[in-house]
């Protein structure tokens, strides 16, 4: 196959999912308590997008992958130490907040500008990837708005599968309601895909890939331009943890027959 593409993956960092999170309000708005101290990971769905991008680039010789990320650069550097071991990519870093409380439209504007500034990017070969939602804001908005700003009207969200055909057309499976996929065929690049889980396992660490990536990651982080998000017009009236504690009744002394009978009665009850 002689179809090469340029894949730009947009993805930021989020607190490690196993961390305890607590919102705090201050003069600068809402944030997470000790946010800068929390260990971070690449946003899970963005990570899937990155792995799918690398997989596709490998199948289409002459293709290249960029990772465009808006995050505090010190935190991003930590995350890159592990992500860079996985697949080949070139980092484009923008130094700014990775908080879930930032406005998706402002983040999209920053990221779209960063994509436009990539030297030698050819719109006719462009695929923009990202997670369909983040694990922070979880809005599913940013990617659509990046696509709009880049003039891409072939957009797909909740993507689990992409096949690039020999004629350059693409077959795409998007998640829809009821555990089904919508099957679409797009004539060709450019397109934007917000990935769900995809089908690939997480790649194993490859020190050689890591060494090559890190040579470019450090300069990219040093060159990262600062970006501010103002959250203009957005007011958080409150942010709180759910009152999630229930009075759990622990049943230890019932036989399986008794439990089954109780469950069946419970299931049948309106």
């Amino acid at each position, binding site marked *: 196959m002689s179809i090469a593409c340029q894949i730009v993956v947009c993805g930021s960092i989020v607190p490690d999912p196993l961390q305890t999170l607590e919102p705090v309000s201050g003069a600068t708005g809402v944030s997470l308590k000790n946010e800068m101290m929390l260990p971070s990971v690449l946003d899970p769905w963005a990570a899937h997008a990155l792995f799918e991008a690398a997989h596709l680039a490998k199948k289409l010789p002459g293709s290249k992958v960029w990772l465009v990320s808006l995050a505090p650069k010190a935190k991003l550097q930590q995350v890159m130490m592990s992500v860079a071991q996985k697949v080949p990519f070139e980092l484009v870093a923008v130094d700014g907040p990775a908080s879930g409380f930032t406005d998706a439209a402002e983040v999209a504007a920053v990221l779209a500008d960063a994509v436009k500034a990539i030297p030698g990017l050819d719109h006719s070969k462009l695929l923009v990837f990202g997670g369909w939602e983040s694990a922070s804001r979880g809005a599913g908005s940013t990617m659509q708005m990046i696509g709009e700003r880049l003039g891409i009207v072939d*957009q797909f969200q909740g993507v689990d599968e992409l096949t690039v055909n020999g004629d350059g057309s693409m077959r795409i499976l998007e998640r829809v309601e009821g555990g089904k996929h*919508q099957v679409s065929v797009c004539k060709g690049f450019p397109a934007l895909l917000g990935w769900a889980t995809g089908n690939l396992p997480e790649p194993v660490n490859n020190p050689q890939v890591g060494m090559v990536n890190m040579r470019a990651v450090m300069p990219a982080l040093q060159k990262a331009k600062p970006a501010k998000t103002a959250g203009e017009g957005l007011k958080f*009236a409150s942010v709180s943890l759910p009152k999630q504690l229930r009075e759990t009744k622990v049943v230890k002394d019932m036989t399986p027959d008794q439990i089954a009978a109780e469950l069946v009665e419970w299931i049948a009850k309106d």
Partner: protein
Amino acid sequence: METILFLAHTEADGTLARAALETLTAARTAAAGLGDAELMVGLFGGKTQEGAAQTQGAGAKRILGVTGADFSQPRYASDAAAAEALCREAKASIVICPATSRMARVMSGVALRLGGKVDTHITGLKAEGGVLSVNRWYYRQRMEAVLQRTQRPWVLLLEGGCHEAWKGTGGTASVEAVALALPENCKRTVVEGLKAPANDQQTIRPDAGILLVAGAGWTKAQADGKAHVEDAEKIILDFLECAQASLGGSKSVVDLGGEGQAVLRFMTHLNQIGQTGSTPRHAKGLSTCCHGEEPHVVGWRFINERRAIDLDTNCGWAHGKADVLYVADAFEVMKKVNALLGAKA
């Protein structure tokens, strides 16, 4: 004065789905709460007349429609064009839409085209003192925020199951056609259809009354020191069939395949609930063989009544999160549950 546009796509037969009718109720509530707000209806799809009729009695000042074959299939380019045209025609300051996959795919892009703002996954909406506040969750349902915005237009996508569905008064409705010629570059994508598991393999049922959450414990060694994955598969599938339940899986059970371990063959990433999965809404939830603390438990945050079966008395999945924890062997209990449900059928 706010102009509230209830905006939705119609189904293949021209009607509105339940999620859309729930959103119409919310839009009416917002309009009433904001005092002098005007309510309008905007519909797009292959056919719109049937859906418009369902909105009768809701108090809409105008019912607008973008109708035609070009708008029958869910496709970003055509759906965004239709939604944008309807919002502009209505001069809407607040646009309220159901968070179906079709609307969620386009409305953030549409908000940008309109020069407005968007908030998605809205679970609550309140209008008080002329101010509209909305609830949504952050960090994968781990904290809830109440938001207000001054920018207009403000596009809101409402989650299903949060409002009663609007029951129209019936009769015919007059749809004002909004003309829209779709440019050729908006037709580069063709929707071929849906890919669904065979009926007997369908394990995700959004309308089910009960969600069964299966954890990795189903695939682990049991009391005899051996794993009984085939037994587990049969027990789970039998329960789904007997109770017409939907199936959710913890991240650990879904990831087993990628790790080369024994798997429940019907369990895919589409079943995954929690941080990187879905947060389905069902009246009841029964978790079996699930382990882990917060944040794994967010997957059943929106389940009203929750029970769990686990051999671990201190199961973190259940303590403080389930109403009842049965300390028992899920294999034994669920076999008997299936037998009882089968006998009742």
